């Protein structure tokens, strides 16, 4: 294969022709709204990818527009001709990733993040444990008081203050890998614990299992599962993403389950697209498609089983900030809201433009901090207008970002952000069968 044709393939040049440049993606693109120029719109980016494939521009001309993309894929939902923007974006990222002359330190730190930390359960547990130690030992308070975290590189300090309280290492290790349904079993599900969810939002995972078993599901947790590879794929590290995907597919193939459940919108989307990841790979494409066909968000399974009642009143008005990949890729829109409406509260109020990305977007808010905060600020304006005191999300990144938004607005006393699953447990979820 000559290199020009190879480049066209990797950039999904053919797919760019499906864009008729109608511009229907412009009004839904968060970066077009805040950055106010066509290079930061989906239509602009697709055109630039095409221009690179035709050798009219250089890879470096494409870098900024691609790096500033959130990858929320709201454009795919708006697109009247079903252009697969996600595919074009990941292709461009891969090409840019390979074109880049990286410094030695950058290579080492990236390899640490992508190759070591995200796929490793031990590492993730350690992060969780360290965070727990950090919070409980009083170091957090001291650091916050002295303002040390503000000077941390990449604004990590800002995120550190919004981390949830973590369970002790003792309860973390104690989890068995099968949880039986309370009452009669309706389905058997596998649970993807997710690396970030499991490390930092361990409590949410425990609540997920709790809800599933109460709703009548046997829950299996294969121990060999690993990171879904979303961050790798979004960063253009397709090879790494594939090897992680293979491990997950193998881990769940061994179990007999009706569904494979996850509680993180971003991971769910990636798991659902494993088939696409292995396109053309005869053996793995079929296995991946089988795997993906079982992927469900927790809200889908709870809605389908319809076996929970909510017994406790939650104090406050609720609004919902959906995860982009949950609505634009998984196409799960109504289920979380219908669950929230079952909760006894002061009511559910919809946020204007709720489908718009909050600016979290994987590690976007860390690497493009200022751009992300501009997007967050416009999101918070809409959140405030609902007068809700509980902002519910369905993805760990969004949850941290909303917590950060609440802090930026100085609303910590009156508003809180919470994962859907945690709110459902707080609302006193019990099996309906106990009543009937």
């Amino acid at each position: 294969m000559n290199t020009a044709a190879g480049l066209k393939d990797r950039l999904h040049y053919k797919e760019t022709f499906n864009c008729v440049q109608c511009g229907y993606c412009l009004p839904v693109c968060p970066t077009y709204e805040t950055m106010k120029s066509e290079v930061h719109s989906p239509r602009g980016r697709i055109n630039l990818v095409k221009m690179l494939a035709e050798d009219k521009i250089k890879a470096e001309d494409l870098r900024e527009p691609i790096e500033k993309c959130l990858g929320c894929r709201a454009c795919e939902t708006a697109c009247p001709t079903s252009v697969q923007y996600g595919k074009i974006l990941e292709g461009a990222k891969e090409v840019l990733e390979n074109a880049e002359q990286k410094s030695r330190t950058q290579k080492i730190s990236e390899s640490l993040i992508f190759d070591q930390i995200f796929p490793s359960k031990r590492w993730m547990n350690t992060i969780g444990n360290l965070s727990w130690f950090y919070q409980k030992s009083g170091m957090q308070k001291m650091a916050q008081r002295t303002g040390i975290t503000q000077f941390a590189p990449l604004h990590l300090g800002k995120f550190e203050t919004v981390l949830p309280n973590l369970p002790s290492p003792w309860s973390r290790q104690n989890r068995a890998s099968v949880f039986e349904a309370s009452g009669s079993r309706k389905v058997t599900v596998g649970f993807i614990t997710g690396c970030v969810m499991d490390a930092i939002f361990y409590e949410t995972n425990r609540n997920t299992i709790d809800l599933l078993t109460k709703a009548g599901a046997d829950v299996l947790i294969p121990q060999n599962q690993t990171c879904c590879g979303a961050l790798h794929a979004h960063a253009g590290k397709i090879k790494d993403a594939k090897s992680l995907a293979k491990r997950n597919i193998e881990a769940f193939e061994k179990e007999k389950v009706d569904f494979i459940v996850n509680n993180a919108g971003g991971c769910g989307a990636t798991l659902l697209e494993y088939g696409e990841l292995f396109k053309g790979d005869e053996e793995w494409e079929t296995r991946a498609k089988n795997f993906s066909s079982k992927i469900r968000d927790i809200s889908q399974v709870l809605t389908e089983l319809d076996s929970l009642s909510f017994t406790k009143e939650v104090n406050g008005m609720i609004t919902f900030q959906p995860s982009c990949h949950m609505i634009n890729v998984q196409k799960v829109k109504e289920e979380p809201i219908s669950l929230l409406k079952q909760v006894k509260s002061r009511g559910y109020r919809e946020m204007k433009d709720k489908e718009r990305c909050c600016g979290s977007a994987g590690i976007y808010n860390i690497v493009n901090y200022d751009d992300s905060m501009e997007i967050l600020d416009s999101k918070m304006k809409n959140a405030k207008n609902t007068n809700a005191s509980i902002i519910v999300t369905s993805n760990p990144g969004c949850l941290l970002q909303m917590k950060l938004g609440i802090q930026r607005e100085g609303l910590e006393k009156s508003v809180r952000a919470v994962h859907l699953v945690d709110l459902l447990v707080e609302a006193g979820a019990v099996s309906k069968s106990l009543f009937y």
Partner: protein
Amino acid sequence: MELLMEEISRIIPSGQIFTSLADRYSYSYDASFGSYLPEMVIQVKNKEEISSLLKLANTFNIPVYPRGQGTSLSGGPLPVNGGIVLDMSQWNGDLNIYPDDLVAVVSPGVLTATINEEAEKFGLMYPPDPSSAHVSTIGGNLAENSGGPRGLKYGVTKDYVIGLEVVTPEGEIIKTGGKTIKNVTGYDLTKLIVGSEGTLGIITEATLKLVPKPPATKTMMAVFDDLVQSGKAISKILTSGILPAKMEIMDQFSIIAVENYQPLGLPIDAEAILLIELDGHPLAIEEEMRKIEEIFTEFESVRVKIAKDQDEAKSYWRARKLVSPAIVKIKPTKVSEDATVPRSKIPDMFQKLKEIREKYDVHLVVFGHAGDGNLHPNIICDKRDTEEMIRVEKAVEEIFKAAVELGGTLSGEHGIGTLKAPFMEMELGAAGLDMMKRIKQIWDPNNILNPGKIFPEEGQKLVLRE
């Protein structure tokens, strides 16, 4: 160029000037055909900036192309001779409704749909509804005189403009019309500017007429086994004393494409589907709908469904909305035309289109605004296939000829731009076109404003290949 750059940076804040290759390529296209690289892109946000810039461009002889959000289907904003693209889309902050005067005053970058949304808060409506209204700017709509489905009952953009503020190609700021419905003071320059495709001036403010929002709507779907019958039904309804707000048609090829794309249970053996929307007082449209149903009983082989509620109405319109995504699944390139014929000639036009489809062996799909004769013949093709594109070019040429021969026009709502320029003389005659050219020369003696549009170059032909 360097000297010019220095002058420009004196009048425009640096954050509004884009010169990188990526930026320039990002304003090189619209939703039609062709890509032309401008030297720079400038975002403007007030009339003084535009006035100074045009004076400069006029002195240095630099072409300037106003652009909204680039949704044009005729090449309106394409920088065909290089120069400066003026991005007007970020000048979107001014939208004031004066409910007692029933007018809206807007800046050029405001989205068309936003005007209607704001008007609705006062129980009013801005009727023009191009399908891209949620993306397109009012400036672009004014320049192209855009229409939409509601054109049948309410007319098009030009019917709602009563006043403009315009910067001329020589940099003068003028006002045309005013805030009153009646106004016969001097020539009607407002109507001249609207639809002039950005060749006579840059619109910096518009005063738009609003109408009371009809309290209710009702939707009907009629399925015809015979296309000619559907044409007759359209005429019959329009002469019965009822004026629907919308009357859209889908031909058999559109129906099949939609069913293949997303099965909605449409009858694929039917030759046409008509969608009719009535608006007005709930009791009145109830009565009108009954009357239309009665009219349909005179026709054979037609099945009629009336939507019980808004949800059902939405599901009917969904079929029409899905035509565009459905047809590009067949092949990626969509050549979307808007040749328009007198309403009575709709059946003849359908016959002509059928002949053209067979003669050039092209994938021709027809849908659109049947009630006002504004059909959208769309040819689905692949622009990488040169042999096919040559056939498409010939077919398009023949569609134009057919429309003009039937007493119609090249363009009902998309504009002439670059694509239809070669056919102008066919419709207007040499003298008619020359009068237009003379107007352009008086307004823009150095031909700096949106050159290459409307008027054909010597020997210019339609080219859809890249």
